[in-house]
């Protein structure tokens, strides 16, 4: 088993020559650690591997975690059927970013490095606000202000305020999650209106994170300490008409939809 490190089109590539088994797994992780000191994107070319055991799988997961911690991404190029079966049997294929060839892996990584290009299908041309979000909570307030400005130009009647407030909150929770959990340095957001519906589309490069799995509000009656977190995804589900997630080419594509209704009595709060 040997490692070969190369650069292809600015992408760091680590070739594995041979099978990925126990006696090589730790060395591979160490090799990745060394070559990614100044890089956070890596293609691990495993197309020569014909066998992988659980130690090899564990090493792949460690490589994935290592790059995610850096806010980067590892794409695993893997053509062998038996190796791919290990990924699918263990559901690691839902966590790792896999590609069927080295070329496909480079393409996926290039897409991820470019950041997400969000868009809203069906919105009027020129009527979509596009925002790029970095890895900083402080960038969310200006993003929300841009979304608010767009929405208030489109829905001017004050009777829309309650619906719009729901949308701003859900969009903020989605952005909070991207900043806090994705590790992505660049998140693409697009907001547009189609008829009376506002659509929020967010593209986050990195590991799969599906927020559409049923999320319930934290239990406040459990007798334990009141929870300080875990509300965000439940709030999104509660307030939006539709929440969809798709994972494609190493990117999470989240779409929130909300029909903006008039409320006669907006209420004065308490």
């Amino acid at each position, binding site marked *: 088993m040997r490692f070969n490190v190369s650069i292809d089109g600015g992408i760091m590539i680590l070739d594995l020559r041979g099978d990925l088994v126990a006696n090589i797994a730790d060395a591979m992780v160490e090799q990745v650690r060394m070559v990614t000191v100044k890089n956070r994107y890596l293609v691990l070319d495993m197309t020569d591997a014909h066998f992988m055991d659980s130690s090899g799988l564990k090493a792949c997961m460690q490589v994935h975690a290592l790059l995610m911690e850096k806010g980067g991404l590892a794409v695993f190029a893997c053509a062998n059927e038996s190796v791919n079966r290990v990924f699918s049997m263990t559901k690691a294929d839902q966590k790792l970013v896999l590609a069927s060839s080295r070329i496909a892996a480079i393409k996926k990584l290039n897409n991820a490095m470019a950041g997400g290009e969000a868009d809203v299908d069906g919105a009027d041309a020129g009527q979509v606000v596009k925002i790029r979000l970095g890895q900083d*909570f*402080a960038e*969310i*307030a200006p993003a*929300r202000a841009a979304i608010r400005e767009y929405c208030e130009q489109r829905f001017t009647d004050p009777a829309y305020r*309650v619906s719009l*407030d*729901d949308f*701003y*909150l859900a969009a*903020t*929770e989605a952005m*909070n999650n991207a*900043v*806090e959990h994705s590790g992505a340095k660049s998140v693409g957001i697009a907001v547009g209106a189609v008829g009376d519906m506002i659509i929020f589309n967010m593209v986050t490069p990195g590991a799969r994170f599906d927020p559409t799995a049923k999320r319930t*509000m*934290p239990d*406040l009656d459990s007798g334990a*300490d*009141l*929870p*300080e*977190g875990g*509300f*965000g995804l*439940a*709030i999104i589900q*509660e*307030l939006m008409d539709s929440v969809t997630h798709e994972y494609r080419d190493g990117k999470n594509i989240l779409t929130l939809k909300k029909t903006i209704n008039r409320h006669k009595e*907006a*209420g*004065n*709060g*308490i």
Partner: protein
Amino acid sequence: MEFNIGMDGDVVVMDITGDLVASTAEEFKRQVAKLNDKNFHFILADMSKINFMDSSGLGACMAAHKSLSEKNGLLVLAKQNEAVAKVFRITRADQKLKVVPTKQEGIKALQDAIVAGRAK
């Protein structure tokens, strides 16, 4: 985010201006912790100038409530606008934390809690 802190008898009145969100939640918790450390355990948070709050802001209120309760104190949240009140309502946090419509009601609730504490 700005905090204007004053006293009404034994009650600390904290006027908060700005959004209570992920980027400011820690600041709110720090302010409450500082007061708690100085033995001010009965705090009224006037939320009328908070235009927007997310789940991180809610979490900060939960944390502040917890830290004051541990010292037998109380956090009262007053004058929430509709958008802020909705966050408490849909999460049912309004049933666990003391939320009141007016500052006066908040101060009364805190004064009653202080008297009740002294009577123990």
